[in-house]
């Protein structure tokens, strides 16, 4: 299966990924490595659409990758509007594609 992680690099050398962990993306089991940001872990496996805008339901994904543009927000462990490009994965974390402004889990 496709994996966009860069394992060997001519300048940066061999990558050191953290421990393999499981998170849940829209309810499905998903493998990631400790230390990775949610958005890049998803991107590495080809998941680039992270949310849909409220009015026109347009897809959005990573745009700035440094936590400034909020294009990458998702609902994480029930909390909406989490900037996934700067939020590290954690074992057992539940990540949901966000629709519009998202909803708080009651």
């Amino acid at each position, binding site marked *: 299966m496709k994996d966009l992680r860069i394992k060997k690099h*001519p*300048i940066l050398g061999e990558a050191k990924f953290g421990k393999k962990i499981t998170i849940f993306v829209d309810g499905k089991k998903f493998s990631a490595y400790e230390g990775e940001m949610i958005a890049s872990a998803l991107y590495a496996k080809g998941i680039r659409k992270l949310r849909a805008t409220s009015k026109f339901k347009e897809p959005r994904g990573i745009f700035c990758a440094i936590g400034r543009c909020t294009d990458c927000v998702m609902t994480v462990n029930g909390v909406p509007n989490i900037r996934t490009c700067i939020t590290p994965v954690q074992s057992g974390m539940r990540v949901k594609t966000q629709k519009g402004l998202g909803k708080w889990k009651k």
Partner: protein
Amino acid sequence: MKKKIFTQDYYKNFPGYPSKERLAKARVVVIECVQDIPCNPCETICPRKAIVVGKPITNLPRLIEENCTGCGRCIPICPGLAVFVVNNNYNDKESTISLPYEFLPLPEKGEEVIALNREGEKVCRAKVISVLDPEKNNRTAVITIAVPKEYSGEVRGIRLIRKNP
């Protein structure tokens, strides 16, 4: 069609480009640095004082061609990857070109590769003569290839033939 920007004709008028006579004689550096950028490590590293930038530091690097031994030390230090060494005296039919290379995988000694011109187009096939360990030069490898003599002014890059693993 795309207009060519990076050609031998363009570069040969700059002060880092050796004369035809010097190129024909023996191994020599070819510096393709053409703008007044504040930079001079090529000058600093040369043990033979064959490259002069001087003051101001934005001067173009000027080659003192009789001083250069073609040792190649200045190739991997150049941030612009703009320094090459050409040896037109390698044998009767071939010249060698030494160039900086920062991609993976590295070619191996003896491997056949595709020689590219400055625009990335295939010129001919080339044989890898040597590969200088990138670890010794902070990750910039120096590859020396042999190409038919007539192409030594054109070839400035390589592409591997083998598939990436």
